[in-house]
């Protein structure tokens, strides 16, 4: 039994790693296409039918590029920093239940690598550690823009960790558990049971903080081209840069899964749609939302970002938690 468990876990890890690396690549294609359509362009069209092999071409380019390390950089830290970003993004997925249970023959597969009782805390914690990737990369690069990007990383990620934590605190209070499977089971039984109806403010706060945590456009200050060239990734090229990219897109999927599981009913069956497809639809809606917002909204200034976090979002989150507690105590 023990051997079977180890083999099963290893297979799950490989599937998650391979699938989400491929999905991250595919998400870049989807992003370029959707952005292009929203700006009345066509996007990549030349490699393969409708440019669908562009991902492959980009991958070949990234893999075969020279692994360049600048002279002024701190070599070991410079080399290890992208790995931290990609690794934490994938480690965070360990505690996320992707699909409902299914059986192969007589063997029940639970599509979660590790069902720990502090799943949500683990995911948020590991995503928080992801801060070290850009921070160390920027500080080790020996470049002004990288240093500025690293400083922005530190303030942005640390600040919005607070909002993320406080915004999911209210749902955690209602459900009474940190396991994401418990969250999912709490919302079983139709759209009316979704937590988003009980905690709409927490949902919006979590989404806003998710945009900041994944470094997406309204809050893409870490690598905003017009201000800090490419931020912490200025000196990176080739596959090391690609690892940052994969980490960012894997984080997008993590936030999408988290938002679907905590607020939008997770992998429960939705009307006639089976649960596995329902959660995929929800996650892809969030991915689309990330791209959609990127096409629509300008990004904010760093001071506006901090103002938004500490003077608007955090007080609202605290008030939300307090009101939730009062309501739970008296009703």
């Amino acid at each position, binding site marked *: 039994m023990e051997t079977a468990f180890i083999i099963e876990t290893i297979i799950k890890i490989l599937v998650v790693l391979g699938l989400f690396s491929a999905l991250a690549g595919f998400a870049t294609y989807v992003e370029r296409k959707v952005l292009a*359509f929203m*700006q*009345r*362009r*066509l996007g990549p*069209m030349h490699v393969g039918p409708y440019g669908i092999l562009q991902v492959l071409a980009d991958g070949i380019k990234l893999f075969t590029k020279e692994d360049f390390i600048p002279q002024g950089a701190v070599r070991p830290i410079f080399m290890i920093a992208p790995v931290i970003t990609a690794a934490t993004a994938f480690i965070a997925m360990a505690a996320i239940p992707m699909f409902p249970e299914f059986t192969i023959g007589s063997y029940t597969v639970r599509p979660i690598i590790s069902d720990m009782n502090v799943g949500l805390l683990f995911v948020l914690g590991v995503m928080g550690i992801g801060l070290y990737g850009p921070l160390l990369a920027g500080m080790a690069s020996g470049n002004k823009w990288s240093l500025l990007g690293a400083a922005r990383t530190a303030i942005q990620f640390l600040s919005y960790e607070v909002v993320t934590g406080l915004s999911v605190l209210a749902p955690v209070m209602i459900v009474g558990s940190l396991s994401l499977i418990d969250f999912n089971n709490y919302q079983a039984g139709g759209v009316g049971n979704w937590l988003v109806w009980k905690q709409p403010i927490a949902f919006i706060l979590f989404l806003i903080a998710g945009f900041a945590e994944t470094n997406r456009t309204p809050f893409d200050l870490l690598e905003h081209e017009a201000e800090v060239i490419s931020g912490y990734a200025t000196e990176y090229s080739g596959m090391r840069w690609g690892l940052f990219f994969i980490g960012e897109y894997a984080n997008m999927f993590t936030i999408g899964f988290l938002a679907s599981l905590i607020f939008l009913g997770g992998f429960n069956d939705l009307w006639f749609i089976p649960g596995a497809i329902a959660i995929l639809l929800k996650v892809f809606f969030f991915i689309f939302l990330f791209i*959609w917002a990127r096409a*629509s*909204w300008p990004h904010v200034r760093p001071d506006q970002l901090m103002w938004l976090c500490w003077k608007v979002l955090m007080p609202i989150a605290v008030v939300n938690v307090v009101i939730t507690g009062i309501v739970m105590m008296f009703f």
Partner: protein
Amino acid sequence: MSGLEQFQDRNVSQNYYRVKIEPYPKTPWEKFKRVIKRSLKPDLLIGLKITLLEMLRFNIHTIQYPKEKLPVSPRFRGIHRLLRLLESGNERCIGCGLCEKICISNCIRIDTRPDENGRKIPTEYTINFGRCIFCGYCAEVCPELAIVHGQEYEYASEQRAQFAMKEDMLTPLDKLKEQKEYPGFGAPTPAADKLIKKTPLAY
């Protein structure tokens, strides 16, 4: 004149309107009110709506360049062409050498000889496109509308200076029917006949 109207229409200012800019807030309370007003107004959602509608409308403006090409303005000054007379098929060039003289980058070279009728005809007519700046003076000065600018704009080549020989530019005899009168730079205006004043012969 067909096709020229859209290039000549410069009257684009009819639909201008002034953007209303509200006075900037001075006190913190006014600033706070502005924040609330901006947060609760559905501006962000309107932005999302516009981009989504554009995507669903799928009104794509991309020109996929090597496969699709935009029409070129008639006044575009591309690679030169030497034209022939439409009826007889003789070369229009009379070898006067004005283009050679006016060329400010000295890239036109003509050799001429008198033919059996005593007319001067060019034996060689070359343009060094490594030097040509496509100013259009040669087409403007040509009294016979013989050297004109074509519509060709893809002239990247392996050689730094690609010489164009007479036979490259001259309309081939079998394509004489397809040769169109040049409407562009240096060509007579449509009302040229009316504008001509008779030269008094007796002084």
